[in-house]
Structures are given as C-alpha cells and as structure tokens.
C-alpha cells in the first residue's frame, strides 16, 4: 500500500488534521477511538479471566499483578474511556431524538463537564485508598 493512499487520514488537507477538526468532529473521533479501545479491552478481559478461572493460583497471580499502581492507573484510564464513550453516546442519542441539535457544541461541553466530574470522583476514591502508592514499575 502506498503512502498516498492514506491522504484522507494524514496531511493538511485531511479532514482529520487537528486544525481542520471542529467540536463535533473531535467528539466523533474520540467516540471511535474509545470504542476501538473498549472492544479490544473486552477481548483481553475475557482472555485474562479464562486463565484465572482455572486454578486458584492463576487467580491470585492475576489479582497480585493488577493490584500494582501502574495497572490500577491503566484501569482508571479505561474507566475514563468508558465514561467518555457513555457521555458522548448520550449526546448522540439526544440528537437522534431531535434534542439539542442546534446547541450541539453546548451539549458536548455539558456532557464533558459531567464526564469530568465522574472521572474526578473515580480518581479520588482510588487515590484516597492509596492504590497509586508503591512500586509503579
């Protein structure tokens, strides 16, 4: 495949070039990126659990690994992806119902404010419990 066949994705004339993207486009790109991440994660989730389900030792090993601060942080980022995808998804459904289309930018930022509030609470709970303390790597 030639590099020129990716012109729609890269380059200053691409609709995905940052300065060419407006609010709705960012929301759309974010929705797809988080969507892809979450689909990949679901398969990883099943894969790890299928190993952990056979034998108590495997389960304990998985729990010990995922209790490390770096893993807790990765888990937190995953929660961020879920919350973004859910809140932007609500926005999409609102527009499907014909609600707020004329104020689409405001609707986006209201949704993001709610998302930020949930993310902040999620982070605080983990931080407060000391789950980010200890050896990171």
């Amino acid at each position, binding site marked *: 495949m030639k590099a020129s066949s990716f012109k729609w994705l890269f380059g200053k004339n691409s609709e995905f070039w940052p300065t060419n993207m407006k609010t709705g486009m960012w929301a759309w790109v974010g929705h797809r990126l988080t969507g892809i991440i979450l689909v990949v994660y679901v398969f990883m989730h099943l894969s790890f*659990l*299928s190993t952990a389900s056979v034998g108590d030792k495997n389960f304990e090993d998985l729990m010990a690994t995922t209790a490390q601060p770096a893993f807790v942080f990765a888990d937190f980022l995953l929660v961020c992806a879920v919350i973004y995808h859910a809140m932007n998804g609500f926005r999409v459904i609102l527009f499907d119902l014909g609600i707020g289309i004329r104020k689409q930018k405001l609707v986006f930022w209201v949704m993001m404010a709610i998302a930020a509030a949930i993310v902040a609470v999620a982070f605080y709970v983990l931080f407060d419990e000391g789950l980010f303390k200890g050896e990171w790597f």
Partner: protein
Amino acid sequence: MAEERIATTKTAGSWAWFFQRLSAVLLVVLLTVHIYLDHYAEVGADITVGWVHERLGQILYIAVDYAMLAMVIFHGLNGSRTILFDFDMFLRRRKLVDIGLWILGIATMIWGIFVLIPFIDG
C-alpha cells in the same frame, strides 16, 4: 471518506441502529453496577476466588454478567461494523463482513459463558 460515511447511515440498517442505542442504554446501567460493585464498593479489599464464587451463588449476579456479556459483544461488534463500513473495501463485501462478525460474536459469547462457569462451580 465523506461520501462513504453518508452512505453508511443508509446501508448499516435501521435495526442495527436501533439495537445499538438499546444496548447502549442497557450497558450504561449494567456497567455502572458492574464497575461500582466489582471495583469501587469495597475498593482496596483482597479479592479471592471464594469471594467471587460466593457472589455468583446469587442467580442475579450470573444473569447480570451474562446479559452484560451479550450486550457488550453486540454493541462492540456492531460498532466495529459501522467503522468497517466507512471503508469502501469492507462496504463492498457487506455479506462477508456480516457473516464474519456473527460468527465472531457467537463464538465469543460461547467462550464467555464457559469462562464464568468455573467461578460459579467454585
């Protein structure tokens, strides 16, 4: 790209559109319960096989887990289908993509059902 994306809304199908929204709303409810109960309600506590087994003794937990699995597989693969259909090479092979995704989805569901069984049996 732009032309194909407009075409997608017509070719992806209205049932796919409707069930994507329905599963989305259900997933928001189910995932909130799942993430809260499994990761936040007793944050920092040691999670053991016994604890998981004990909880899965309640039929409600099993039902919620399997419902979530079915919803997440549908929503994830149907979303992937929408993304694939934004590309001409996949849009031209609609039937093949659909059959492939159905096989992947059903296989994943069967796999997921079996993953939970050892936890239920303890």
